[in-house]
């Protein structure tokens, strides 16, 4: 095909896209499942890491620092392969879904920890002091006073992490998780129309991320009513 003969239909075959859309969308539940489970793992573990990082005790602070550094410094895909192809060698076999969720979750935890750390620090020190003057314990202060305020600050960067996570789940196709991208690859194998199908799946990811951005806006409004 010469460039002069270009027409839009060669780029994107709408009829073919429409025909295969239901099959590809079949992967959306898996994409969302991996995203949400990973985000949950990331949030819980990320909070623990952030608190360890801020500890006065070096033997708590230091391992957390090493962990965060390692996770930020290794490619997600490599870590995924370690979990899925590496662990069975020492007798620990994970399902593709477990490996993916765990891999993305533990990796995101490192980024979330850094976000949590700076959000927690950005809450005014006077809040800790007045909580102490009211005799609230460390954990109660954290739960009732500090975290609600830190959350507001953390929402935009956490949303970013989540969007990245949703997009990164496409890597799970490599370890056979039947999510959006894997389904797309199957269709490409069948129809040989790589352009149409990859554009289609790109649009689906984009739509997902727009929904997430919309939710972020709503959350921000809700949390900013008192600032």
């Amino acid at each position, binding site marked *: 095909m010469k460039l002069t003969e270009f027409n839009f239909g060669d780029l994107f075959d709408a009829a073919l896209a429409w025909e295969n859309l239901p099959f590809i969308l079949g992967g959306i539940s898996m994409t969302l499942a991996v995203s949400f489970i990973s985000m949950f793992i990331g949030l819980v573990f990320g909070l623990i890491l952030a608190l360890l990082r801020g500890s006065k005790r070096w033997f708590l602070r230091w391992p957390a620092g090493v962990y965060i550094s390692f996770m930020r410094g290794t490619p997600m895909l490599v870590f995924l392969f370690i979990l899925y192809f590496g662990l069975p060698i020492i007798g620990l076999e994970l399902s593709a879904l477990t490996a993916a969720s765990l891999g993305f979750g533990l990796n995101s935890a490192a980024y979330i920890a850094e976000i949590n750390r700076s959000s927690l620090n950005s809450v005014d020190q006077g809040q800790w002091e007045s*909580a102490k003057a*009211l005799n609230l314990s460390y954990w109660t202060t954290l739960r009732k006073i500090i975290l609600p*305020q830190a959350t507001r600050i953390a929402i935009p960067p956490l949303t970013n992490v989540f969007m990245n996570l949703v997009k990164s789940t496409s890597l799970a196709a490599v370890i056979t998780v039947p999510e959006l991208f894997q389904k797309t690859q199957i269709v490409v194998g069948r129809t040989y129309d790589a352009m149409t199908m990859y554009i289609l799946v790109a649009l689906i990811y984009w739509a997902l991320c727009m929904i997430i951005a919309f939710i972020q806006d709503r959350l921000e409004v809700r949390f900013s009513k008192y600032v």
Partner: protein
Amino acid sequence: MSEPIIQFNNIHKSFDGVDVLNGINLHIRPSEKIALIGPSGSGKTTLIRLLMTLEEPTSGTIIVNGENLWHMEKNNKYVLANEKHLQNIRGQIGMVFQHFNLFPHLTALENCMVALMQVQKKSEEKAKLLAAKMLERVGLKNHLTSYPNQLSGGQQQRVAIARALVMKPKVMLFDEVTSALDPELVDEVLQVIRGIAKTGEMAMILVTHEMDFALDIADRVVFLDGGVIAEQGTPKEVIEQSNNTRLQTFLHRFRK
């Protein structure tokens, strides 16, 4: 004379090697109202923060209601106080800060309820009742559900006072609670404090530059200078009879 509720015994405090308090000895009776005055940097804030356990003394002992604040007895030995010991004593002390430090994500009512429920384990209904009553007492009956950012500085500081009072402390600490306020909002806060001082059987330590107010409500005025108590006595004694020249210059500057 009754046992002192608070004793500072030879308290020293330094920050990074810089001495801020140099041997404070001060005993406070259970219902005594102390005005703590002194030039900027003399250590007033530091002294009451030590009592609130926001800072730890470098040396010396603080006794609250007969109990050593930073040390406790365990197997016949004096050991560093644990968190539980500190919490027991902290419960007897309330503090109001210069910059209010209200919880911005909670309403006025919730600000006053949180410690009742979390520390004193009161039920929500009971806490709500007590908090509302206390807010009414500081003149905020119509602002129970307002968030701090919807209130004026004077109103916010009154919420902070109610929040501390509702815990029924035996000692209340006020650290320049009107100095962050616009001048026209100062009086409403002073009125509230005056009301508490006149009725309460609580001990109070007031750090303030509102000299006439301090002299009016205080049983005793303590003048801190360079980290030591340079002069103390009844307001009358301090104003009329002291021949401490630094105190006289200080009073002269701050009295209207």
